[in-house]
C-alpha cells in the first residue's frame, strides 16, 4: 500500500522535475544564452538591491557639484543637477526592468488570450481578430508611440505625481501596441494543436473542450509563449529607452537609461562615458534577453530529443 502510494506520488512529482531538468540540460549547452542569463541575473539583482547598493540617493541634488567628472566619491561623476550618476544608473535599472516585465506580462497575456480565442473558435471570430491584428501591425510603431505618448504626456493619474504617471502611461501605451506578436503566435500553436491527434484522443476519452485546453493546449503552448515573452522583454527595453530618450517616455527626475542618455547629450564631447554607459546597459540587457530567448527556444523545443 505505502509503496504504491509512493510510486503514485513519484508519477506525479517526477514529471515536472524531469521536464525542467531536460530543459536545463539543453539550455546549458547554449553558451551564449547562458552568458546572457548570467548578465540578466546580475542586472536583476542590482535592480532589486538598489537601495543597499547605490552609494547615494538618486534624487539628492548637490548644486555645488554639477557635471563633475569621476572621483573617488562619485565614481561616474554627477549630472547637471549634481546627482550621483552611478546611483541613478542603478535605480534606472529598476525602472527599465520593471517597465519591461510589466509591459511583457500584460501584452503577452492579453495576446495569448486573444490568440487562443482566435485559434480555438475559428470562423468569423478568427477572421475579425486577424484583420485587427493585421491593421495594428501595419501602423508605424515609433511615430505612433511618440504621438500617443505626447498626447498623454500631460496627464496626471490620481494619486500619483506627474513623473510616476508617466511610468504608468508608458507601460499602458507599450502594452497596447505589443500584444499582436503573441496573439499571432498562440493562434498558430492552437491551430496546430487542434490538428494533433492527441487532442482528438482526449475528446474520445470524454474530455470537454475546456479540459482539453487546460490539460493539453496550455502546457504545449507555454514553451513558445515563454520564448516570445523573453524576446519581447528585449524589445520593450529598447522602445522604452527610445521614448524616454526622445523625452516622451518616463519623465525626469525618475531615472531610466533612456532619459539618462538624453541628459548626457549636453556633455557628449567632454564626458562621453555618461552617454556610453546607459547606452551600454540598454544594449547589454536587450541583447541578453534575445540570447536567452534563443536558448530557450532550442531548449523547449519538444521535437528535439534529450
Amino acid at each position, binding site marked *: 500500500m505505502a509503496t504504491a502510494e509512493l510510486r503514485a506520488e513519484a*508519477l506525479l512529482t517526477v514529471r515536472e522535475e524531469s521536464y525542467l531538468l531536460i530543459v536545463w540540460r539543453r539550455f546549458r549547452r547554449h553558451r551564449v544564452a547562458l552568458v546572457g542569463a548570467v548578465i540578466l541575473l546580475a542586472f536583476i539583482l542590482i535592480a532589486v538591491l538598489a537601495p543597499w547598493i547605490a552609494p547615494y540617493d538618486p534624487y539628492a541634488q548637490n548644486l555645488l557639484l554639477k557635471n563633475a567628472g569621476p572621483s573617488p566619491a562619485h565614481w561616474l561623476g554627477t549630472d547637471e543637477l549634481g546627482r550621483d550618476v552611478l546611483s541613478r544608473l542603478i535605480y534606472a535599472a529598476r525602472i527599465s526592468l520593471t517597465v519591461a516585465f510589466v509591459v511583457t506580462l500584460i501584452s503577452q497575456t492579453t495576446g495569448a488570450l486573444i490568440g487562443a480565442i482566435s485559434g480555438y473558435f475559428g470562423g*468569423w471570430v478568427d477572421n475579425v481578430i486577424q484583420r485587427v491584428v493585421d491593421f495594428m501591425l501595419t501602423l508605424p510603431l515609433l511615430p505612433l508611440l511618440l504621438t500617443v505618448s505626447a498626447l498623454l504626456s500631460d496627464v496626471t493619474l490620481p494619486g500619483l505625481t506627474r513623473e510616476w504617471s508617466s511610468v504608468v502611461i508608458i507601460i499602458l501605451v507599450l502594452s497596447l501596441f505589443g500584444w499582436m506578436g503573441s496573439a499571432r503566435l498562440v493562434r498558430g500553436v492552437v491551430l496546430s494543436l487542434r490538428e494533433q491527434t*492527441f487532442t*482528438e484522443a482526449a*475528446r474520445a*476519452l*470524454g474530455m470537454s473542450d475546456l*479540459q482539453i485546453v487546460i490539460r493539453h493546449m496550455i502546457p504545449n503552448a507555454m514553451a513558445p509563449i515563454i520564448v516570445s515573452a523573453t524576446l519581447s522583454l528585449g524589445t520593450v527595453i529598447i522602445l522604452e529607452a527610445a521614448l524616454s530618450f526622445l523625452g516622451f517616455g518616463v519623465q525626469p527626475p525618475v531615472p531610466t537609461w533612456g532619459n539618462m542618455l538624453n541628459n548626457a547629450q549636453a556633455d557628449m564631447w567632454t564626458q562621453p562615458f555618461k552617454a556610453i554607459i546607459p547606452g551600454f546597459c540598454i544594449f547589454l540587457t536587450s541583447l541578453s534577453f534575445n540570447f536567452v530567448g534563443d536558448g530557450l527556444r532550442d531548449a523547449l523545443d519538444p521535437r528535439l530529443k534529450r
Partner: protein
Amino acid sequence: MTLTQMQVQTSLDLSTDQDLVVVRGLKKYFPVRRGLLQRVVAWVKAVDGVSFTIRRGETMGLVGESGCGKTTVGRTILRLIEPTAGEVYFEGRNIFALTKPELKTLRRDMQIIFQDPYSSLDPRMPVGASIAEGLAVHGIGTPKERFEMVVDLLRKVGLEDYHARRYPHEFSGGQRQRIVIARALALRPKFIVCDEPISALDVSIQAQIINLLKELQEEFKLTYLFIAHNLSVIEHVSDRVAVMYLGKIVELTSREELYRNPLHPYTQALLSAVPIPDPTLRRERILLKGDVPSPLNPPSGCRFHPRCPVATRYCAQEEPPFVNIGTRGQEHWVACWRVM
C-alpha cells in the same frame, strides 16, 4: 430517393441482437469555404450514404484507397465528427441523439487507436499520465488505484512498469503504439476503432502490433472496426470486410468470400494490384485507368464507372443499389449493375 429507402430497409432487416454497432445512411459532407466571408462554395462528399453493422466480438475490416472516406466513417461513428445525415446505433442507442453527459458516459465503451503514434500522445505528459487520463476524466479510482491500473495496462501491452514515468519522445514508434493501445483499453471499452494502426510502423513491428491487437481482442472480448488500406493486413485481421470507394461501400461480405469470390470490379482490381511476396507467382493484373476522381464532384451513376473495365453506358446514368446477393444464408452485399 428510392435508393436510400432501400438501403435503410435492408440494413434494418440485418440488425439483430448480436449487432453492437448499426450504421444507417451515414453521410458526412465537409464544406469548402472561400473568401473573406468564408462562404461555402462547395461540399466534399467524404461519406455519402454508408450502411453496415458490426457484430459483437468481430473485427469488421474497412478497406479503401486514400480519400475514400474510411477514416471519416470511423471518426463519425464515434461522434468525434458530427454527421451530415444518418444514424449510428451503439447497443441500440442512437449516438447522434445523445446529450453531452450521455455521450461522455458512452465514451467509456468506445475508443479509437490512431495511425500516427507520434502525434497521438501529448509530448508534455509522461505516458503514465496519458494512460490514466481517461480514468481521471471519468473519476474512476483514486490516484493510487489509477497508477496500479496503469502499471497493469503497461504490462498487458508488453511494456514495463517504469515506462509510466517516461515521456513519449523516449519511445520508438511501435512502443508508442502500445501506449496508445493501453490508453484506449484503460476504460475497458467494448468497441475500438483501429484507424490504420500499423501503417506508420516498420514491417517487423507491424506484426507485433497485429498480434497484440488480436490477443487483446480475445482477452477483453473486444469488437474492432479495423480501417486500413493494406488488403493483406485486412485479410489477416478481419471477420467481415467492407470495401469503400469515393464515399460509398461497394462490397461487403465475409473475409473468405471477399478474397475468394470478389464480385465488384473495383474489389477485383484492388485485389489484383496487391504485390504478393512470391516471385514464382505470375498473375493476371487488372490495371485501372487514371486516378480516383475528386469527392468534390463525384461521377454520375456508379462512381466507379469512369475507371471500370466492364462499365456499360447504363452505369453512368443510374447509381446501382447496394444489395445482398449471397446464397444459402451467406451475406454478400454489392453495388454493381453488372453483378445483378
